[in-house]
């Protein structure tokens, strides 16, 4: 029998044998819906939790050169920026107070940070252009405090040094503190006080921490202060592992129970329709053909059920709490179809190896 003919025959048989097809479809819908409402909620919670833990702020590693020994040079920033596990890196100096140069004494003071490295790693330019060394960008939220109607002009620090303002910005996470003032473009030689490293993912925090310290190469570790989210990384790993294990266990249980029920329905169908299967053998269906037919017939009935269950389960989950991740929903639907097919194999073999003569003979 051709494969396309066999599939079409499986579909026709599934339609003709409505009761068993409906039972398989309902079972698969239930498997899908129950999985999404139990394991799916766990997966959604896990995803949400890990997403929160994986927020850029949770991946920020800050190393401070406590004695201003010139450890955090622009060259070090450049090396760190090239590491695979580093998403973004900037050197940040201690903030200095600046005022609007035009207003002068008595003007409101706002903090300004000198930044080494790519400014785009810390802020998003909204108007103007990226500053050259010695120039500044003003935060949109700090503009009015400085008395700027436009992000243009100049600011002066407490030492009387003037910085032309060439544009405005919004700070990127996790550098929201820069929204309080200005950033000053650093030059290629002056070190900064600290280096802020956003690690690409939490699991890489520990190894990146080692690499950063190694690159800074302080003569004595007491010369630097390290603020690292390694504890958070460990927590994420533990939580992810626990939730994953729980979810996998629940998934196996649900699919396993569903598979047993599907197998029972298919077995009942096979036993009830012995003459039908015997007739097929007598008319030329091979044993493997019969196995394929029974399995395909089950999958044909299971797929619409699984799709309905997935949609229904996802909608109910969305109403009750939060929808399960789309990838998870798709995976559960495919898995349900596969499991129903696998569950049909033992009864299909039973159908194939039964003696057709016994059921075809009329006493």
């Amino acid at each position, binding site marked *: *029998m051709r494969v396309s003919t066999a599939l079409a*025959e499986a579909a*026709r*048989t599934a339609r003709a044998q409505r009761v068993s097809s409906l039972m398989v479809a309902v079972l698969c819908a239930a498997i899908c819906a129950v999985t999404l409402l139990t394991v799916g909620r766990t997966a959604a919670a896990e995803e949400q939790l890990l997403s929160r833990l994986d927020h850029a702020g949770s991946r920020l590693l800050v190393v401070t050169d406590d004695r201003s020994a010139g450890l955090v040079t622009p060259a070090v920033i450049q090396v760190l920026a090239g590491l695979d596990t580093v998403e973004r890196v900037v050197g940040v100096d201690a903030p200095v107070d600046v005022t609007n140069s035009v207003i002068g004494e008595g003007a409101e003071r706002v903090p300004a940070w000198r930044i080494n490295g790519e400014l785009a790693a810390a802020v998003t330019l909204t108007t103007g252009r990226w500053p050259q060394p010695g120039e500044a960008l003003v935060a949109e939220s700090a503009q009015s405090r400085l008395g700027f109607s436009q992000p243009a002009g100049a600011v002066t620090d407490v030492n009387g040094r003037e910085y032309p303002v060439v544009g405005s910005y919004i700070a990127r996470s996790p550098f929201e503190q820069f929204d309080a003032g200005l950033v000053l473009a650093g030059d290629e030689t002056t070190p900064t006080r600290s280096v802020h490293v956003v690690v690409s993912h939490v699991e890489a925090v520990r190894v990146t921490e080692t690499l950063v310290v190694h690159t800074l190469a302080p003569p004595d570790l007491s010369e630097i202060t390290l603020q690292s989210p390694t504890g958070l990384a460990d927590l994420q790993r533990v939580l992810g592992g626990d939730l994953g294990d729980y979810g996998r266990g629940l998934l196996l249980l649900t699919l396993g129970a569903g598979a047993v029920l599907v197998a029972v329905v298919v077995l009942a169908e096979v036993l009830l329709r012995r003459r039908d299967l015997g007739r097929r*053998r*007598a008319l*030329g269906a091979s*044993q*493997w053909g019969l196995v394929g037919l029974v399995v395909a017939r089950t999958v044909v009935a299971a797929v619409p059920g699984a799709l309905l269950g997935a949609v229904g389960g996802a909608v109910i989950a969305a109403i009750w709490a939060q929808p399960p991740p789309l990838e998870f929903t798709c995976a559960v639907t495919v898995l349900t179809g596969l499991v129903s097919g696998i569950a049909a194999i033992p009864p299909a073999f039973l159908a194939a190896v039964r003696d057709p003569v016994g059921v075809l003979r009329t006493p």
Partner: protein
Amino acid sequence: MNSPAALAVTDLSFAYRRGGEELFGGLTHEFAGSAITALTGPSGRGKSTLLYLLGLLLRPSAGQVLVAGQPTQALGDGERSRIRATRIGFVFQDAVLDTTRPVLDAVVEPALYAGARRREAIPRARELLTHFGLVARADHRPGEISGGQAQRVALCRALINDPLIVLADEPTGNLDRDNARVVLDAMRDAAHAGRTVVIATHDPFVLDYADHVLDLS
């Protein structure tokens, strides 16, 4: 050189269980082509069993079933099923039609196992149904036709692949005389068309139609 018989058995024996009663005791027989051979004998002598051996649904414990001269004993299930689908047509005592499918599907079914596409098989199925006066019932379910009509549908099904051999197990057992005559006339037509027709029966009315009788007494 003569072409081999469509159907023959050599040294054939069969036992349902190892060490159980042996049937046929080394039977050797060549079934005549273009003729009806009736298998007859008292109950329990293996008429239906021999028919299912000839149909490659059972394997002999000794000897061979030869289809168009080809020994079949050593063939695997796939090859035996292919021979069954392409060269053998079966008619059972009660038609054994799928009650959930239309008559047309029942007739087309063996063609699918023989590798044909459904749309390729439908014209031949309609032609056969027309020949047997059943085309108006093509879309009916088996529960909506009479026993005689069902057996004629079974005959259409047996002939759809234009087989060399037609095997029938008590095909008139559930029919009245008029319907039995229609079915047997059709079998005779099939034989006259060059087929080897073998009928397992104990009905004297069927024996009247047989060209040869193989008595298993």
